[in-house]
């Protein structure tokens, strides 16, 4: 298990420079589109994931990983476990941004907790689609996959608003949220967990068989 910790730490060492870019990003985005949680919670987390994955295949770095005394599924597992610190990090950033905006008087409503939670869930769903593709396509396909996923998130901003128009009930839940809707929420979380696990199984299967 400690190996997963060191692998994740490795990812953070690599994406350190990207984390510095977060400060101007949040400042600018916070100034322009304060109510878009996609841009604060989902997009940064996804960027971290994509960056961490891309840096692993950029040169022959997967060979380095495989040369370590680890099993291949350990390497894959660490990537999936890294999703949680990524999600946590962008969640914290969102909160900090909100607190700052609130203190400055730019905003006076409480944070939309349910929307934030939904974005985090969406991040996990997107990641579980992204990672098998990353392991399958390797170095050659990474550029295209990255592009598609960033486009997906961009579209998500408008798609999400559309979705709310189609299902007013969902919009209502996000806005108010009431106890009688607990069951679908639990089901949603459960489905998401199953999806991640299935995705992990597929990714490690792909990576184990691969010639690096």
């Amino acid at each position, binding site marked *: 298990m400690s190996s997963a910790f*060191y692998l994740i730490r490795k990812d953070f*060492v690599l994406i350190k420079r990207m984390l510095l870019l977060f400060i101007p990003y949040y400042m600018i985005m916070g100034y322009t589109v304060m109510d878009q949680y996609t841009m604060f919670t989902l997009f940064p987390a996804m960027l971290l994931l994509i960056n961490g994955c891309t840096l692993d295949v950029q040169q022959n*770095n997967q*060979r*380095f990983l*495989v040369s370590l*005394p*680890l099993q291949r599924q350990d390497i894959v597992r660490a990537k999936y476990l890294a999703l949680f610190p990524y999600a946590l990090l962008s969640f914290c950033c969102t909160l900090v941004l909100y607190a700052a905006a609130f203190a400055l008087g730019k905003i006076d409503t409480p944070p939309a907790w349910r929307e934030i939670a939904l974005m985090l869930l969406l991040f996990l769903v997107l990641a579980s689609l992204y990672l098998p593709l990353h392991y399958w396509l390797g170095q050659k396909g990474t550029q295209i996959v990255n592009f598609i996923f960033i486009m997906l998130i961009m579209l998500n901003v408008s798609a999400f608003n559309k979705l709310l128009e189609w299902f007013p009930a969902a919009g209502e839940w996000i806005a108010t949220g009431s106890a009688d809707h607990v069951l679908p929420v639990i089901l949603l979380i459960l489905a998401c967990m199953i999806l991640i696990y299935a995705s992990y199984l597929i990714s490690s299967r792909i990576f184990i068989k691969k010639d*690096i």
Partner: protein
Amino acid sequence: MSHCIEMKQISKDYDRFQLHQVNLGIQEGYITGLIGPNGAGKTTLIRMMMGMVHPDKGEVKLFGEEDQLKLSRNKARIGYVSDENIYYEQLTVKQMKKVLAPFYDRWDEDTYQKYEAQFKLPPGKKIKDLSKGMKIKFSLAVALSHGADLLIMDEPTSGLDPVFRRELLDLLSEHIQDERKTILFSTHNTTDLDRIADYIVFINDGRIIFHEMKEALAEQYVLVKGGKELLDRDVRRMFVGVRENAHGFEGLAKERSDVERFFQDNAICETPTLEEIMYFTVKGSAVHV
């Protein structure tokens, strides 16, 4: 004598290249050199040992283990020097060391510091800004700092200046002072091996041509130099490979004593260097195909 790497009946098909039923056992306690022209399959074999490339058929054992879990743990006992940089280029030498050290239980920071100083590795410099030689020195320092029992090196001397090449040979001899340590290195520069290698594995076009003690090679092979009038069809057949020029021929033959008796004083019989053995074998096999 035990083998620390064992490959049995390994086959692998690529588009333009095949490994054919390779059997190989690397002796514990010795230096084995893997030679062959570029594209012969040296790197593929080494990557199979490291578990990077999977054979289509056959099995690979490291330290007698073939179970996947134990095999991957056993990689801690291997110091690997790749033929190309496998480290994160955007990290500094120091950062990279910090990233990889915790994966090895037997990591010895003092030893690493010693090699860092000896190789004059700049800790603050990014890997991508290191010269090829420096990159190799870094991976060598890493390989020697985690108590590896087996060093597997793919073309470690290419990109090194002659002075450091000699130093490297010293380091390898130093490493092998402990008779449980083993070294396998591939090279196409055979002069490195002429000196210190105990065993030579010669691979050409995906096949192992021979796996011999270097000492025995000199007694087996003979390089014959003589006038062209000696070369009739039967004589040609004695040679592994022949090179002709305006003034005569040079040929490599295998049954040294028979060949020497045959030519007697009509031709010069010499002990071939590894390079000559390699050259004539590759040349000969190209003609026969």
